[in-house]
């Protein structure tokens, strides 16, 4: 049985916190919800750490837990009805506001406006730079499904973005 002591738990939090927060935010697009989700993931891992199988890396395990919770959240009544708790967190953070004044993040906005299945594929592939096989494992689907979703996601992005922006993407 894994005996997860405080120090190691704290190390795990510090190591994965940023990664999971970014991922969670890109799914739920709400910082407060993202924080809650990541917190739940860590707490659950802490409580059930003995269930963690070392067959996959810890990051993969936490990533999968985070994604599942994000999807639960997106299906939840809380998300659909935009409860009061989101009011404060919906505000744009000053830093981001400055960035947005300086540069229109058209591509990012287009990605974030994609339906979740396609957004997920783009986030995991382009942002988290996972392989198609890794993505398929994490979200428990086939590689061909991921390829299809990536292809469709790119087509959607192409439609939504101006030609110029799209050329930036295709030139990479």
């Amino acid at each position: 049985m894994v005996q997860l002591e405080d120090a190691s738990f704290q190390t795990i939090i510090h190591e994965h916190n940023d990664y999971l927060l970014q991922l969670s935010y890109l799914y739920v697009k709400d910082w407060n919800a993202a924080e809650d989700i990541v917190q739940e993931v860590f707490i659950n891992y802490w409580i059930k750490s003995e269930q963690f199988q070392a067959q996959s890396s810890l990051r993969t395990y936490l990533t999968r837990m985070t994604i599942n919770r994000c999807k639960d959240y997106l299906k939840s009544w809380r998300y659909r009805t935009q409860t009061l708790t989101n009011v404060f967190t919906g505000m744009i953070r000053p830093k981001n506001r400055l960035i947005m004044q300086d540069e229109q993040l058209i591509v990012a906005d287009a990605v974030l406006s994609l339906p979740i299945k396609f957004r997920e594929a783009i986030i995991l592939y382009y942002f988290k730079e996972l392989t198609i096989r890794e993505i398929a494992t994490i979200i428990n689907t086939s590689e061909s499904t991921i390829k299809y979703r990536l292809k469709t996601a790119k087509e959607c992005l192409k439609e939504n973005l101006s030609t110029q922006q799209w050329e930036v993407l295709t030139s990479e």
Partner: protein
Amino acid sequence: MNEIKRQLQMKIGDTTQQQRNVIRKINAQHPTRSKKKYVFIPATVSLALLVATCLFVFSFKGVGEPSTSTMHAVPTPLEEEQVDTFESNEVLTLTEEQKRQYHQQYVEIIEKAMEKKIGISIGVSPMEEFKESDWVEPQVFEKRIQAGVDAFLATEREKLAAMSTNLKPAVTNPNGETMKARYLYFSDILINIGVTATFDTQYNSEKDRLLFSEVDAISTKLVNHRGTWDQTFQQATILDGGRTYRIYIEGIFNYNGLTFEKAFTIEFHCDEFGKIY
């Protein structure tokens, strides 16, 4: 870096604050303790331990130690100013007996603060979890607690003021029940509570208007939020010659394993034609 990654990274920005929030939320639920020794303790004991030791850890845990208190989620000038005043680098040398006495006094201070039912859950860690640097004179401890309470109340005022314009007016349904909502602030959480009651009004010939005569079936419920709310006490007082009913409510809000006691008042008014608002 690919363009998608670059833009998403910029969109996200720096997550330092969010990371702190996550750690704070974790500490609020499960402060940094070894967990295994609690796993098989019966639920009631666990709950008691949670309430006593885990829900809320104040900054009395040592000078220079990063604050993990949920109460400090939104720093205010008041909070910073007062904490500075109360910090002391002096490490007390106490005997075990003195420690027991101090700990007992800490518990009493906390109990006194909790009696106010302002919506925070504060607990004192078990004595054995105190580091040498955690021990302070009870007066200092009390000041720190008060500073935390003041900071919480300041944040509460700020949050409630920001949301006050969003409240819907009181609604009376065909059954005669009137529902009015108000926000309650707990540590980092703002919830909407609906207060429902049935009012009777009577015409007062002397004042030539309708006035409240009776209130019945006072109930409260949580609106649009996860968690549960259990009303534990209510008291209605008629004011202003029958124009106003002030209802005092106490209840317990449970959220993510955290328990907060809260007391609040809400007023219902009756206009001259018997409309309740």
